[in-house]
């Protein structure tokens, strides 16, 4: 079962985890502002027209880069440091190296953003990081693998809790994915062949980096924060092997009806439906664990983030099995449906899960209760309502666009028909932004509080994130 939770253990470098969470918050704002600006272009109201370095296309790439490499990577890596050292009872190979990696990594992300704005983007989806930075990031990923893999290796004779399985596998998958996805389609395989390879990167960055670390983080946090055992260890193992087998095989479903060989496309459709094995085991496990004490959904704030993140995961994945069929692709491919799907899974699921962690861990590291539960609740409800509206709106927009294209309406007519949906999308984004502003203000005030607190004022961990 999961680890003894003693956050005061002096072996773990809490300073570093704090930095990673601060970076998560920083990129969160970058992401939201970039996304909001870009969405205004669709309404012909872009705030910085005619400025080369703030061209909407470049800002769009900054938005997705900051989501994957800035926001979620920082949040999840911070969580990973915590989980690995807690579960193995060993420290990372070198804490200095870990701190160095934090600065090196974030320097790379900021450089990548600056270079994309300056016009050095790479032409591969989710891999727009400029070409000259790619080898450095690959090396950093390998060093991180060695640093975090070290304590797992030292603990290899123990029974691993399932979070460690996911983390260990991700540490291997990420450098491999990165190297294959950034170098092969850039230098070796052109056109259709390149699409077959780069679709692996599009899929695996989420499927083999964000997803397993996200699942590892909830499998750890949920039992700890609820003080109940995980529902089923066996189920979590089936989910792990399902993910390891099915997820990497999903790639070509990003280019269905493309010139990629049809057998590869069919195979990716079948394995995408197989992903349900993964999804339902994870979801049943999490919901059943929460069901052992439903009351905590109301009284225990981080549990709420995990629960609704899990619901969003269920919805996206059910959606995935429908939208990935060849028939559905005829209509919804190339449309805003896919955009809605991506936002729902990356914000609704993974950002929610990381946020649950931040609400749980940061106050403990600061030894200060959250400043205002009222602001925290605003954050939760605005995020939930915002992303729900955005999802429904973009799915509907996607169906409208797809059907109009099939009817061979002039393209500009389909643009006009989408404008109302794009208005709702922008407004729902503003709702989310308001929620996140509540979050950051709340964290800032908590941090200010924490500077007045003396370390001997211990907070009772079970009640510090209070009731509704």
């Amino acid at each position: 079962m999961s680890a003894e939770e003693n956050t005061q253990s002096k072996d773990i470098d809490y300073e570093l985890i704090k930095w990673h969470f601060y970076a998560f918050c920083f990129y969160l704002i970058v992401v939201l502002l970039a996304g909001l600006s870009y969405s205004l272009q669709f309404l012909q109201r872009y705030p910085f027209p005619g400025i080369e370095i703030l061209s909407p296309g470049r800002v769009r790439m900054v938005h997705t880069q900051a989501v994957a490499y800035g926001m979620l990577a920082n949040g999840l890596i911070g969580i990973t440091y915590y989980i690995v050292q807690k579960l193995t009872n060993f420290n990372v190979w070198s804490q200095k190296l870990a701190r160095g990696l934090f600065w090196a990594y974030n320097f790379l992300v900021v450089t990548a953003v600056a270079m994309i704005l300056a016009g050095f983007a790479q032409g591969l989806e989710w891999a727009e990081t400029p070409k000259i930075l790619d080898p450095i990031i690959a090396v950093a990923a390998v060093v991180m693998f060695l640093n975090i893999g070290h304590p797992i290796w030292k603990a290899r004779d123990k029974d691993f809790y399932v979070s460690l399985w996911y983390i260990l596998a991700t540490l291997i998958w990420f450098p491999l994915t990165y190297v294959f996805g950034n170098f092969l389609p850039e230098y070796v395989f052109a056109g259709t062949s390149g699409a077959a390879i780069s679709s692996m990167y599009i899929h695996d960055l989420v499927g083999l980096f964000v997803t397993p670390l996200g699942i590892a983080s909830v499998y750890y946090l949920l039992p700890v924060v609820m003080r109940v055992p995980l529902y089923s260890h066996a189920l979590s193992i089936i989910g792990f092997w399902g993910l390891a087998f099915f997820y990497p095989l999903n790639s070509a479903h990003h280019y269905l009806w493309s010139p990629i060989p049809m057998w590869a496309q069919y195979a990716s459709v079948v394995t995408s439906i197989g992903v349900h094995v993964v999804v339902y085991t994870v979801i049943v496990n999490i919901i059943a664990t929460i069901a052992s004490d439903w009351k905590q959904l109301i009284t225990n704030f981080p549990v709420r983030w995990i629960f609704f993140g899990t619901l969003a995961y269920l919805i996206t994945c059910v959606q995935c099995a429908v939208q990935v069929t060849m028939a559905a692709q005829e209509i919804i491919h190339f449309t805003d449906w896919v955009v809605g799907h991506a936002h729902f899974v990356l914000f609704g699921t993974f950002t929610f899960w990381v946020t649950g962690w931040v609400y749980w861990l940061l106050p403990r590291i600061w030894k200060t209760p959250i400043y205002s539960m009222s602001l925290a609740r605003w954050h939760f409800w605005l995020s939930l309502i915002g992303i729900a509206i955005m999802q429904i709106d973009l799915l509907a927009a996607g169906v409208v666009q797809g059907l109009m294209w099939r009817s061979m309406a002039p393209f500009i007519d389909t643009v006009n028909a989408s404008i109302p949906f794009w208005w709702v999308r922008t407004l729902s984004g503003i709702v989310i932004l308001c929620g996140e502003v509540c979050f950051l203000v709340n964290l800032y005030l908590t941090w200010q509080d924490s500077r007045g607190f003396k370390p001997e004022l211990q907070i009772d961990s079970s009640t510090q994130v209070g009731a509704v």
Partner: protein
Amino acid sequence: MKMIERFSGIFLFAGLLLFSFAVLSLGIIPALMVDRLHPRQGLPTVVPHEMKEWYSTVDVYQKALLRGRDLYVREACWHCHSQYVRPVSNESAYYGPVATPGEYQTVLHLPQLLGTRRAGPDLSREAGRHSNDWHLAHLYQPTWVVPESIMPTYTWYFERDASGVIQPKDDAKALVAYLQSLGKDFEDAQYVVEPEDIMLPPGE
């Protein structure tokens, strides 16, 4: 069974074996298959008629195509414009002939620019649909030629000459040269642009 629950099992089976299986079976093998069936082609060896005004020799024209492709990448054109026509959803009637693997086997598609989103129309059959002047005006201020367009402006590829007239820089011309090369081989094929030209598919 105990073995796969250990470090080595997770590392070797989940981490390396299953991942390599996927990369090989759905990445490398289809890629090699396409490459084997359709050898890589070179860049165009003649300057098309409509480009002769800007590019006198093939050398300069080829350089312009590559430069245009780089601009297409850096401005993220490919995030809003796809480059393949699917065999479904009446796309071959709207855009032109369905995409084939062979047509992408050029250095212009390294990295690939198939795209996954159409906030604007597909561009893989763009050659010859509009004049060079239309493209220049459209890049400078899209709403001048398509009043309801949501495309961003690309004014930094233009400058005013001594008499105050807006002139394209070399980059703008390169981008237009690239756009006019997309689907050049299919230039004469049937497609629908104007509303009055719409041909309903049989049975509708």
